[in-house]
């Protein structure tokens, strides 16, 4: 018997006490999925939680995003930045002349990305209660490696993308996941507490996360 058949046989033999073949009838689940949290001010909650991770949040109007991106790059001291395909051209134009702009089109090699200071992306959805930003790596969000190797990540989130909590966030992401999109959740920047539980920010991922919230 091959391993697959043997493991399945063992599983079957181990569950002979289960007589109702319908999982839903046999094992009911007392939970209502996809509910929102009754948060008074979802945006304020999101901002508070993101800042709590040591990331920064800048609020601006939708018209002002290009300038906010350029300001964030300057504040982070980025001398070079990579832009994924799909970002508004005005953002690139607003970036100061002292900052080298690379386009990931055609795709850059990992060695090139490893020495770029910063990346700018958009997001798919943001979850306020845990201060989490989700990327599904479609247009404007870049390949997974883009938001990984550069040291600073400027992430633009639209106010209408911010939901109260994880259940609503997963409801938004469900279709992309069912289409087979890879998804990455970011809650603050890379961090470790492995040495005497002392929190250190920035181990392997970007050491700085700057969120721009466009309203």
């Amino acid at each position, binding site marked *: 018997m*091959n391993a697959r058949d043997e*493991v*399945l046989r*063992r*599983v*079957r*033999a*181990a*569950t002979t006490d*289960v007589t109702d*073949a319908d*999982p839903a009838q*046999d*094992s*009911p*689940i*007392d*939970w209502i*999925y996809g509910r929102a949290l009754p948060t008074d001010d979802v945006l304020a909650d999101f901002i508070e939680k993101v800042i709590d991770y040591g990331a920064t949040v800048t609020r601006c109007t939708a018209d002002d995003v290009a300038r906010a991106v350029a300001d964030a790059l300057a504040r982070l001291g980025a001398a070079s930045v990579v832009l994924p395909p799909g970002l508004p051209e005005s953002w690139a134009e607003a970036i100061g002349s002292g900052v080298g702009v690379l386009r990931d089109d055609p*795709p850059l090699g*990992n*060695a090139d990305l*490893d020495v770029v200071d910063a990346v700018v992306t958009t997001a798919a959805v943001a*979850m306020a*209660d*845990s201060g*989490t930003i989700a990327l599904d*790596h479609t247009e404007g969000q870049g*390949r*997974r*490696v883009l938001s*990984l190797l550069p040291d600073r990540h400027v992430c633009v989130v639209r106010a209408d993308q911010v939901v109260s909590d994880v*259940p609503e966030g*997963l*409801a938004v992401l*469900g279709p992309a*996941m*069912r289409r*087979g999109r*890879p*998804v*990455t*959740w*970011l*809650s603050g920047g*890379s*961090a*470790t*507490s*492995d*040495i*005497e*539980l*002392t929190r*250190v920010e*920035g*181990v*392997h*991922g*970007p050491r700085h996360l700057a969120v721009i919230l466009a309203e």
Partner: protein
Amino acid sequence: MTARRTPEPGSWLGIPPFPKAAPGALDKAEQRRNLRHATTSIREKRAERADEVADWEQLRTAAAQIKDRTLRHLEGYLLEAEGAMTAAGVTVHWARDGAEANRIVTDIAHAKGIDELVKIKSMVTQEIELNEHLEANGIAAWETDLAELIVQLGNDLPSHILVPAIHRNRAEVRDIFEVQMGRYGAPAPAAMTDDPAELSAAARSHLREKFLRARMAVSGANFLVAETGTLVVVESEGNGRMCLTLPETVVSIVGIEKLVPTVEDLEIFLKLLPRSSTGERMNPYTSFWNGPTSGDGPQDLHVILLDNGRTNALADPVGRPALRCVRCSACLNICPVYERVGGHAYGSPYPGPIGAILGPQLRGMDDPKDAALPFASTLCGACNDVCPVRIPITDILVHLRREAVDHKKAGRPSAERVAMKAAEWAMAEGPNLERAQGATQAAGRVLRDRWIGPLPLPVASRWLGARDTAPPAARTFRRWWRDHHDEDDR
């Protein structure tokens, strides 16, 4: 014999001293102080983050129900997951045991001519001792989680599910990095102090070249969604994302209990796990994938569905809930026994209350070490209350104690049998327990160097005696626990 490629790990049969050249290890008292500090601070954070969530108890119930549904109908969900992953372009393998899983990983590496790989922290690969199997087959496996790196470079063993190097202090970490990094890759910076930020930076540059060079990674998975075949890895440092993004090949070893039925089920687990585990609202990074994405990330994905004793636990309706475990480590951090003895005492990669129930279920009771594990508890029940998937840990412990007795019944009355009788009597009613504890305090005083625990359990004393564990003061755990918590309240 050719030279090893990676540092030789410690053995569960005895921990070799490291670094040999460095000042001697901490004495046990200080190690216990470190451990107590660590577990106290994590469990306080956990409590705070759990309290923030209004429907925490309902989440726990739902999580237990979802896992039970999955386990009771596991064959169907496994087939669904296999189908979804295959359709998404993942190569699905099955492994009856650890040896088979190890062989599959080795074969994939050999077929590609790969002789080194990077690893995401994974309990299951510890369980099957993958690294040593790879080493024996000429493949170097590099741990990339900071704590796992400390353990690996320190020729050491993990002592905690979540923070495997919890027993090491910063000075020891500095010594390990200073001596070992240069032997196995980019050396530590010349003037490195023991500041955790500097040590983390050293790990960042040491590992960066390994990430950029790696052609293959091995991961575990926190969840596997049956419906979509989506794998989920939660982490903090970004080493997981590096492993899941940069190499062309990723092999994920997934215990068959890791399934959940639907994407939406993750809304429950992704709220419970980080808060229970690190005491954060959310862990810094979570990766989801279910097959190769053209032009983005690894193009050759493999999943190994592993049994390795899980169907033993599944076959026992009383023990089955142990398979709900999401490896959050909350039960370790709250456990008075774990806090006293540390992780190595349990003799397996799964320490603490979960280790005491999972070990004997996965491996059986033939090894006396495993048969003794269910006795490594005071049955105080604190673990039951923090477990995010409501595993009735103490019920399973009592059940397994009985099994340990049955296992030996053919022979002469064993120590376990005597112990079991005492335990049953003590647990029958509260006052009995108090009396047993009072009576055994005297024994504790007499057997100071050999005895630990509130119950007259010769097995527990053997279990601990064999593990070079200093006994506590001669007072009961209940009292100790109460005093301890009073201290915390002050």
